């Protein structure tokens, strides 16, 4: 097995979705790893040493060498531990679509999520509508590019987009509760089915933080502001 069993360390934070992506990928591949929980308001020397440019989690350390940025880490994992299950498809065209949707998630959906927690009134309503539209675009796109994606619940193995989606939406109920909205719902039926199937996946249940813990965390992120 060469060096592949050599030390793998993951620096992360329990509530960072980017960290959860890497945890899931490592577990899916059956890669043993040491996990280091970082206090993001008091980052360790090691984290700052291994990710001096962005100073963020997650960082994967393999044989003492750091890899940063969750999408890049997942591609690295898939290349080094290239046994099944594969995180990315073999076909280059399908791979380009996975990367496209991963970028869409990271450049559009993720940056819109946190601000939504903080908005009130009309601005909040607009943000919710924008988010719903992005989910609709995602649903349409994935339906077109990966028609078999939505039969995941028939027992097919999960891949990179399942990981991204599962991590983001596993605690959608917590998000709904705290923002008093319904973004993931029957109006996007395929996504709704997909997300609910992912919620039942043992790996997701095993890895992702529970509802109450997430609600508590989201509530601390909301600064008290007057209604507008």
């Amino acid at each position: 097995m060469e060096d592949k069993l050599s030390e793998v360390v993951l620096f992360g934070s329990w509530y960072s979705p980017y960290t959860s992506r890497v945890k899931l990928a490592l577990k899916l591949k059956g890669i043993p790893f040491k996990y280091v929980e970082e206090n993001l308001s008091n980052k360790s020397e090691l984290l700052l040493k291994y990710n001096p440019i962005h100073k963020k989690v997650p960082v994967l350390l393999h044989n003492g060498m750091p890899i940063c940025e969750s999408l890049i880490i997942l591609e690295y994992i898939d290349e080094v531990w290239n046994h099944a299950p594969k995180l990315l498809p073999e076909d280059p065209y399908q791979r380009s679509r996975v990367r496209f949707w991963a970028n869409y998630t990271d450049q559009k959906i993720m940056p819109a999520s946190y601000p939504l927690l903080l908005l009130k009134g009309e601005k909040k309503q607009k943000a919710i509508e924008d988010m719903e539209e992005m989910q609709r675009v995602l649903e349409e796109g994935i339906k077109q590019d990966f028609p078999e994606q939505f039969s995941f619940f028939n027992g097919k193995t999960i891949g990179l987009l399942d990981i991204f989606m599962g991590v983001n939406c596993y605690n959608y109920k917590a998000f709904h509760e705290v923002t008093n909205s319904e973004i993931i719902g029957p109006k996007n039926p395929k996504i709704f089915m997909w997300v609910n199937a992912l919620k039942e996946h043992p790996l997701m249940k095993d890895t992702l933080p529970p509802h109450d813990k997430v609600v508590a965390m989201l509530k601390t992120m909301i600064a008290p502001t007057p209604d507008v």
Partner: protein
Amino acid sequence: MEDLKLHGFWYSPFTVRVVWTLKLKGLSYENIEEDRSNKSPQLLQYNPVHKKTPVLVHGGKPICESMVIVEYIDELWPQNPLLPHDPYERAQARFWVAFAEQMVPVIPALVYSTNAEEKEKAVEKAREHLKVLEDHCLADKRKFFGGDKLNIVDIAFGSLLEFLITLEDLKQVKILVAEKFPLLHLWLDNFKNAPIIKENYPDREKILATMKPAMERRFPSS
């Protein structure tokens, strides 16, 4: 003969990344020039999500987003490889490509800045990114980001930096100052003189001749 079509925009740094990649691989393709104010129905069909160029159409199937296209081409046509073979080196190359993409918002921030303060803020942001590159990537005085041969990171930054220099003239600012960024300066010189890149390098004068009147109309000088 590969069935390759490139929907692009002639002075877009994102389109030029794909042109360089195709040429470096010795691939012929049909170039379809898009009018950004009047996008073709094909473009809107091929990239319904972002409605942007570049889009590479291979055998009728569209690939969107410049760096996703570059990786796609590199995977299918391995001659003159743009990504290293070693997975760790690949991860490092992808990290810097991601860094280039994180720098992109500086461009519209600078182009659309309406006052001196906004302009200065955009210039500062650009310089911050360039400082990271100068300090972290070129310290060993390598010829290209890829070492002796140019790679995907050179392509990602070459296009952006060339466009930024064009914007320096357009917006009357100084960003890539030689004294502050000696290694980057040297690198850009190596890059623009590299074979294939040299013959397909954006014509700065032509771009300025096009952009200046448009800028004047939009932001009449006081």
